[in-house]
């Protein structure tokens, strides 16, 4: 009886195998080739959809070698708030001049980069995303500098 059952199972498996082979013939060479690629670590694509998704930020952050019991998003928000407060202080205290402008522009760029790296996940995502946003930014800044260099005619 047990043998009969096994034979039935085998028949079912064989039928499934045949129908699967008809629907989509297996390219053994490509399977083996793919395994070789994975074994060599050359496959950039993850094995499962869950692995394709970014990792969840842990509940702690290592900042300058010190462990902080807060996730990276909390730490970045804290830095953004402190830098914004510093910007307001600089704007209120420092007299007009090159140093004031340099500090304010520098700090705002630090904030923008922090948001893009950590909140927009540019740090871990494909570099092509960074290129897509950097190119028009670069062209825009060059154009703005050109605009600033043109003497005003009272437009």
């Amino acid at each position, binding site marked *: 009886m047990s043998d009969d059952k096994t034979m039935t199972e085998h028949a079912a498996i064989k039928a499934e195998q045949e129908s699967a082979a008809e629907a989509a013939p297996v390219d053994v060479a490509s399977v*083996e080739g793919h395994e070789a690629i994975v074994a060599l670590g050359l496959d950039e694509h993850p094995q499962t959809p869950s692995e*394709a*998704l970014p990792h969840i930020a842990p509940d702690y952050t290592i900042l300058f070698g010190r462990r902080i019991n807060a996730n990276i998003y909390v730490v970045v928000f804290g830095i953004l708030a402190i830098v914004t407060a510093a910007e307001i202080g600089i704007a209120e205290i420092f007299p007009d001049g090159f140093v004031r402008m340099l500090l304010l522009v520098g700090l705002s760029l630090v904030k*923008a980069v922090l948001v893009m790296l950590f909140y927009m996940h540019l740090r871990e995502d494909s570099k092509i995303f960074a290129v897509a946003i950097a190119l028009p930014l670069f062209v825009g800044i060059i154009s703005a500098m050109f605009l600033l260099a043109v003497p005003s005619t009272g437009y």
Partner: protein
Amino acid sequence: MTDASMEHIEAHAAHDAHAAAKHEAQRIDNLKFGMWVFLASEVVLFTVLIATFLAWRVVNSELVHEVHEATGIWLVSLNTFLLLASSFAMVMGLREIQKGNRGGLMKWIGLTALLGAVFVGLQAVEYSILASHGVTIYSSEFGMRFYAPTAMHGAHVIVGVIWALYIVNKTRRGSYSSQNYIGIEIFGLYWHFVDVVWIILFTVIYLL
């Protein structure tokens, strides 16, 4: 049924699973790239508006200082903190759905929408204060160059608030899970971009 046949079937199944995973990863990357390209077009738009303000401001700094003194810095500083907090709420919402917590997602995205709405409300207050000082879009060259980038940004915040509420509604209906949250990531990219634009606008228009 030989062992070789079984291995063959297993290899086939593994290959199919890999192909599906690869396809899904590619789909997610394509969606994100599409959003980044859209944001790149937004960079062009805001760069033009900011450059126009800067080019005018360089030769009219006295007038800008007069307006700054009339309006003060504290209201817009509060607004800046609110928008930064909304970005934080957004990314915390994403983290919650990554952990499979729909309730947490709704709470944080709801907070994002609320903070965005308060931002727009305070911006309206700021505009009314400016109007009371005679600064309107038609009153001076400053008005024209000030309202164009800030109002355009405000319009983006309004769109973001509506989008956030739409996501809250979809979450309530169970559309997102720990395995399916690309829609929230795409919204997050938009919202954080709006935050980045404000970071630059705040410095260029209000602080310099």
